[in-house]
């Protein structure tokens, strides 16, 4: 069995709402999860169970309370729960990719450049990264006339496809995929499934949230239930 690329050990997360008199909201408690190369783990559980919170914690976007998030980065294990912001930035640049549900548009930046950005950040030259971006946008059936436009005015589905192209542009060893097909038509959902399959095939370790049961069955190698804490207690 291959080395795990991602190992979560005893992860807990609670939010303290200082503006609501310091109310504490525990969301995750003692979560452990190991993902190896070529695996795609689907997080399951009802809405509000903490699936998205877990994903965000894995990306360093939420600050974990307790536990460890070990990621194999450049051949050594980095604990994202204890890493400095600079280490997290480095890990995100080359090791952990995140495909979120929504595109955070940057004013004035055309779709092509948004998709090419992770490649450029990882050191690819401008022309090659734009070619790769165009290849992905074409594959996701985004009309060519939109490539040079900023996506602020795009439809939800078009934005989602730009987002997918951006997320899959760089071959991250670890990928976090949050509802990749939520606003896509069946044909494009098919393309998204294809992208995930290819990522698995090249040996990526994937954690995803897939509400669409068909998509989940198509890509997941196994499921990991996330249990709401209120129900567990």
């Amino acid at each position, binding site marked *: 069995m291959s080395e795990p690329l991602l190992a979560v050990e005893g992860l807990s997360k609670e*939010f*303290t*709402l*200082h*503006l609501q008199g310091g109310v504490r909201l525990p969301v995750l408690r003692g979560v452990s999860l190991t993902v190896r190369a070529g695996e795609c783990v689907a997080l399951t559980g009802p809405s509000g169970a903490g699936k998205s919170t877990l994903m*965000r914690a894995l990306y*360093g*976007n*939420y*600050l974990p309370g307790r536990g460890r998030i070990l990621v194999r980065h450049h051949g050594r294990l980095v604990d994202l729960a204890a890493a400095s*912001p*600079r280490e*997290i*930035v*480095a890990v995100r640049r080359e090791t952990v990719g995140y495909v979120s549900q929504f595109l*955070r548009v*940057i*004013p*004035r*930046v055309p779709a092509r450049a948004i998709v090419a950005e992770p490649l450029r950040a990882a050191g690819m030259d401008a022309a090659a990264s734009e070619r790769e971006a165009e290849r992905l946008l074409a594959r996701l059936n985004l009309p060519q006339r939109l490539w040079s436009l900023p996506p602020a005015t795009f439809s939800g589905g078009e934005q989602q496809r730009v987002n997918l192209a951006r997320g899959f542009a760089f071959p991250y060893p670890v990928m976090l995929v949050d509802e990749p097909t939520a606003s896509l038509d069946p044909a494009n959902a098919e393309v998204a499934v294809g992208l995930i399959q290819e990522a698995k095939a090249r040996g990526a370790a994937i954690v995803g949230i897939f509400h669409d049961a068909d998509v989940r069955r198509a890509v997941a190698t196994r499921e990991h239930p996330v249990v709401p804490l209120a129900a567990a207690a």
Partner: protein
Amino acid sequence: MSDAPLLSVRELTVRFGRTLAVDRASFELWPGEVLAIVGESGSGKTSLLRAVHGDLPADGGCVQYRLDDGALVALDELPEPMRRQLARTQWGFVHQNPRDGLRMAISAGGNVGERLMAAGARHWGRIRAEATEWLRRVEIDPARIDDPPRTYSGGMQQRLQIARVLVTRPRLVLMDEPTGGLDVSVQARLLDLIRRLVSDLGLSAVIVTHDLAVARLLADRMLVMQGGRIVEAGLTDQVLDDPQHPYSQLLVSSVLQA
């Protein structure tokens, strides 16, 4: 990724009379990194920036900078000529009001060329060519190179100020509310420009802003200041999406969603 910070601020303190404007602020900045300092008016963010730049005398603590040869020097121990030399070649300061950073009666070309001439450039044609190139980079029509900035719009003036600062290829740029006082559409253009230049030139930058969207767009890391103190520091999206300190939570929850 370099392991040595470019700038190291330790326990920096600034007093205005009996008021503590900056209370033992410490942070480091690595090469190629963009750091945002956020907080409301009066939180001390601009005072901190000005103290780092040496415009305000510090009442305690120190600012250390790594020279080209790798030596870390305390700025207040550098002789003034050397500090000025640094300030006009390796450092840049972008003021909120372009009038503070430009010479309003001198042509755009002269404004951009000044730092080159201060650094010893004495070939008119080459200075002019460099100024033309920089106007183009900040999206100002080079045909306007001989116009004084007072004939420019606010957004153009701010872009000109950025060109004037970047022309000597500084390693460190300090920006005080660079998009403050501009229309929203003009802001977006400027932000995009700053974002691109910072990444193309591999600049290290400290950006003071009260606008959290600016911080999210430009900065790798951010500091939240309240009452002269740094109350929270971390990865930009983490601080914005999962703020820990009560004041950070207030700040984040107070933003109007458009």
